């Protein structure tokens, strides 16, 4: 079997595992992106989840069988080369269709959003995890690297096959700044749904862990670009070769751990909270009708939130109906484009 076939099999299996787990990620009373009574989600709704999973795994098994029975040719040309790609795409389509089918079924049990909304007056921690010191870390790494590059500028700039270190470091700084803007926006512009008690504590913890992700991405970018910049100096050439991934390892492990934890505790950390502690909470304080394409997009111009909890998958997504969201997106793209144009 070719390596391409192996990677296709891996993709199909990974896709099936992901879709298998996704219904488990949402809040306890959200099923297939629909707000339902928790009693239903815990009872009859489980049969719906089982049927959804059966379809997903049937599609995956069929895709794996096709890959095994009709091995793709070694050459990348000809109609046969497209078969594995088509099988992977087909498998994805089956999983998405199964989701849409389950979503439509769950809508029959949807509950109306509560007419009463409650907000806490308690102070909330909207700072970045670790504060300004942790946020400044990637900039310090990039600055220190820039100093090293400057010290060896005579050698580095004349050497063949080098990257333009200062430009990349400056671009890295812009990218890190954008990651921090995302983190700050997420910390401040997400809604607190639980009012008090363990449910509120779990929700706050969940938000802070999510905010940590863009901060860590900033560290990852700073480390990678710094490693590349240092490698471009002849005096250090080869000193990091094959070892730069070691520096990324902790970052990747943390990201993997965060993802695993998010799947385990569910959206807002609410699956880790006893049902008695979240009796006052219903859904995720967003109306079902504002979720489009089976819960993929949130579009609600009447909602002041920029970030809302995803209904498919873990973490937060954007409210595409809020003009401020577009300001954020367009602003970030413009900054990135301007920086790229000025630097390269």
């Amino acid at each position: 079997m070719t390596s391409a076939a192996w990677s296709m099999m891996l993709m199909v299996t990974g896709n099936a595992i992901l879709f298998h787990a996704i219904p488990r990620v949402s809040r306890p009373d959200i099923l297939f992106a629909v707000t339902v009574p928790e009693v239903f989600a815990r009872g009859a709704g489980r049969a719906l989840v089982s049927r959804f999973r059966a379809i997903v795994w049937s599609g995956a098994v069929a895709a794996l069988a096709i890959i095994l029975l009709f091995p793709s040719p070694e050459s990348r040309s000809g109609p046969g080369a497209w078969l594995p790609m088509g099988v992977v795409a087909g498998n994805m389509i089956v999983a998405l269709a199964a989701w849409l089918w389950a979503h439509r079924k769950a809508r029959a049990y949807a509950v109306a959003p509560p007419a009463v909304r409650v907000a806490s007056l308690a102070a909330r921690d909207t700072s970045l995890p670790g504060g300004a010191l942790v946020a400044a870390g990637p900039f310090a790494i990039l600055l220190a690297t820039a100093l090293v590059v400057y010290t060896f500028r005579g050698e580095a700039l004349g050497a063949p096959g080098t990257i333009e270190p200062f430009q990349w470091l400056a671009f890295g700084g812009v990218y890190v700044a954008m990651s921090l803007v995302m983190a700050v926006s997420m910390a401040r512009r997400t809604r607190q749904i639980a009012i008090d008690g363990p449910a509120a504590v779990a929700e706050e913890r969940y938000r802070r862990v999510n905010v940590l992700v863009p901060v860590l991405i900033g560290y990852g970018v700073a480390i990678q670009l710094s490693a590349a910049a240092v490698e471009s100096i002849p005096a250090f050439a080869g000193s990091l070769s094959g070892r730069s991934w070691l520096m990324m390892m902790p970052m990747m492990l943390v990201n993997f751990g965060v993802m695993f934890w998010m799947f385990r505790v569910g959206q807002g950390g609410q699956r880790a909270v006893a049902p008695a502690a979240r009796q006052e909470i219903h859904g995720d304080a967003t109306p079902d009708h504002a979720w489009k394409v089976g819960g993929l997009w949130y579009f609600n111009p009447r909602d002041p939130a920029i970030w809302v909890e995803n209904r498919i998958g873990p973490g937060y997504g954007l409210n595409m109906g809020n003009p401020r969201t577009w300001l954020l997106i367009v602003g970030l793209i413009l900054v990135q484009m301007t920086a790229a144009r000025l630097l390269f």
Partner: protein
Amino acid sequence: MGSLRVTLNLESPVPAYRQIADDLRRHLVDGRLKPGDLLPPIRQLALDLGVHFNTVALAYRLLADEGWLVLKRRRGATVIARNAPRAVDRRQVDHLLRQLGHIAAQLRSAGMSSRQIASALRRVAEGAQS
């Protein structure tokens, strides 16, 4: 201010900003919100209640006009020691008493006796002493 909360009923005929102001005033009158306490930033409270920022800003401004809060840029709203009005605002009191009359009539039509209404009013008034 551990579990202090603001409630907003979307089906109520009372405007949202007034519901928010009424809830906050109740906490202020009851003494659960004390001078020096910080209220959540306008954007945060609006976000949590799912209303426009201006709705919360209007509620805060209403309470600031009544002398309960001081609004500062960046620091948000802070509760201040409120001096009781020197003279009774006759017009406002008449208006509120008229409203109370309507509520009393509604309570009577809901089956409460005059004595029960009086007792309930006394409880409410005593609870509102700061």
